[in-house]
């Protein structure tokens, strides 16, 4: 109670509220631009924090992160371009809803779920920082490998009609992830003597190419888009019945987001894909997934916004940054003389209470700012198709160039777009490929590190309790998906 009073006092007496609102607004802008990642958005604002009050500076950075994680869903829903890696799972049903003229509804669901996820994540951050951080610290390379396999196991149920094609797409993703320097020895692989490829191909380039560029390529040969009804194109929040329906996927997204957020390196992408998969598994309207299901938007959006808060757990408790964004936040803490660790609460309790209060304000600001910004975005995407396609192309080129200031990246995105168009034409699904690209490095590097530790003995994966647990869950997922497919096939044959 005393802490609550102190936090409220900080809100009134320090510039936390404007810092949170400003951070969220800046973050939404950065997240909504393809290629401008949350970490770049935070890095751009970092120099402005030097002269600020430490509490307000940290809140500004954290609120930017929260805004950017949410902002990634806006282009994912409206133009089939995930603004951030974590927004890739939102594309599937969000863009389908937009194509059906239900973009306003999809944006309303994503905003509502984002706020729920943010508040849930903040609650977890306040209540469980210490015990959750201990779980994160006990993760070994074997456990990280198992975590990657668990993520890949989702392919079995994201494969659409053909499991073979889904697995093939997943392997193609894993192949793309092998481009660059070998994680153990540093030997260049598939780089064709191009220095630009030594660091590998960033997943965001593959996603923008597969989803957005290939969509542009395919749309080049179609006529004018159907104009949505004026009412349908407005931002619409879910009504009571839909809110009840969304409660389950939001709960799944929150729990998975909490679990993934506290583990350094796991991040929002795995959380959003796993939440999408689990929401589909437990849904009564399973067949709607992939065709514009509100639950398919709610689950990943709740998960990646939960991660935005819970990813602070390892940063605050041990000073371990689990992602680039967390590393910039850590930099912000250190610049102001705040050293994360067990003594953080004793030495800088007021700053941490201020951070909690600021994150609370940031979640509410997300709602207010979203209501102001989203109608403008909806108006923009309902312009004539020719202009819209031209502006999307320009946005993709500008955003992608901003990542590394490299024209080579633009060529890579066009290449990924061509691969995406080929995959569309031969019926290969995108999501397994994206999972492969995102998880490939995590799986390979930790698999090989584990074998180095064990001297080549594969039993090490069964001896590590966390790895064994995660691998068992992955096996259950795969067997469950195969059983469901077999059951459906037998039922269809009998009919």
């Amino acid at each position, binding site marked *: 109670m005393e802490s609550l009073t102190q936090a409220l006092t900080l809100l009134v007496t320090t510039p936390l509220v404007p810092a949170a609102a400003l951070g969220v607004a800046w973050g939404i802008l*950065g997240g909504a*631009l393809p290629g*401008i990642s949350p970490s770049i958005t935070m890095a*751009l604002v970092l120099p402005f924090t030097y002269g600020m009050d430490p509490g307000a500076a940290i809140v500004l950075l954290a609120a930017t992160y929260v805004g950017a994680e949410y902002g990634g869903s806006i282009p994912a829903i409206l133009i089939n371009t995930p603004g951030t890696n974590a927004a890739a799972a939102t594309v599937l049903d969000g863009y389908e809803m937009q194509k059906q003229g239900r973009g306003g509804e999809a944006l309303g669901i994503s905003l509502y779920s984002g706020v729920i996820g943010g508040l849930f994540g903040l609650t977890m951050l306040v209540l469980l920082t210490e015990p959750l951080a201990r779980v994160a610290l006990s993760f070994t390379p074997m456990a990280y490998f198992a975590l990657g396999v668990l993520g890949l196991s989702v392919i079995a149920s994201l494969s659409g009609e*053909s499991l*073979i*094609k889904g*697995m*093939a797409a997943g*392997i*193609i993703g*894993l*192949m793309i992830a*092998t481009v660059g320097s*070998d994680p*153990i*020895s*540093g*030997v260049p*692989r*598939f780089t064709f003597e191009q220095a630009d490829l030594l660091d590998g191909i960033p997943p965001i380039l593959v996603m923008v190419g597969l989803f957005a*560029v290939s969509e*542009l*390529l*395919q749309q*080049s*040969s179609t006529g004018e888009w159907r104009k949505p009804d004026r009412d349908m194109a407005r931002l619409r929040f879910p009504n009571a019945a839909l809110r009840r329906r969304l409660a389950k996927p939001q709960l799944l997204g929150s729990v998975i987001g909490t679990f993934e957020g506290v583990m350094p390196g796991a991040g929002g992408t795995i959380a959003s894909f796993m939440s999408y998969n689990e929401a589909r598994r437990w849904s009564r309207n399973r067949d709607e997934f992939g065709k514009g299901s509100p639950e398919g938007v709610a689950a990943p959006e709740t998960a990646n916004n939960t991660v935005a808060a819970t990813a602070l757990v390892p940063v605050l408790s041990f000073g371990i940054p689990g992602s680039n964004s967390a590393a910039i936040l850590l930099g912000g803490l250190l610049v102001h003389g705040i050293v994360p660790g067990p003594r953080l609460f004793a030495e800088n309790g007021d700053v941490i209470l201020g951070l909690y209060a600021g994150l609370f304000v940031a979640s509410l600001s997300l709602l207010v700012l979203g209501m102001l910004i989203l109608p403008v975005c909806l108006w923009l995407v309902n312009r*004539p*198709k*020719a*202009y819209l*396609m*031209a*502006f999307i*192309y*320009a*946005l993709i*080129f*500008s955003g992608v*160039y*901003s990542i590394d*200031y490299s*024209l080579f990246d*633009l*060529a890579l995105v*066009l290449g990924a*777009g*061509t691969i995406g*168009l*080929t995959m569309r*034409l*031969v*019926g*290969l699904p995108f999501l397994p490929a994206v999972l492969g690209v995102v998880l490939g490095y995590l799986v*390979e590097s930790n*698999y*090989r590190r584990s*074998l*180095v530790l064990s001297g*080549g003995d594969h039993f090490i994966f069964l001896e590590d309790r966390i790895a064994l647990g995660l691998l068992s869950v992955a096996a259950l997922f795969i067997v469950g998906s195969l059983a469901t497919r077999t059951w459906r096939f037998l039922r269809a044959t009998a009919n």
Partner: protein
Amino acid sequence: MAKDLTCAAVLFVVAAVYYVLASGIGRSALSDEVGPAGLPVVYATILGGLAILLALKTGLRYLIARQRHTHAEPGKPRAAYVLGRAAGTLAIGAGYVLLVNILGYWLSLALLLPAMASYQGQPIGRRLVLISIAGATVFWVLFVWLLGIPMPQPWLGPLA
């Protein structure tokens, strides 16, 4: 049916090329037991296997369909048209990538926007020109002025 067979063929070619490239990856003194080529070779083998499996499955389905005298799915006659239009869009994008270092960011965008819009059927006229100039300026303000991204400068100097 034809789509699945094409898919199997494409996957097999990808697997074969990737396998050949993976086999050529050198080892280093720092290499572990698996080595840098270890997993890539496994991936290529699995993909090749999946391609063969897909081809067999498609062939089997074709045989069953023929026994039941069902018609094969009609092919999509528009595939060539889709590819042709997509090639045009790709060419516009490639043109931007090639020109941006010569003309600079603003001017290249001011050309990309009307090129793409007119390719999509927008008539060339004063409206298109004005929207393109305004659009390029908005992008310049957002990325260069507001976000401070060092976009490519014109080769001919800042005036261009």
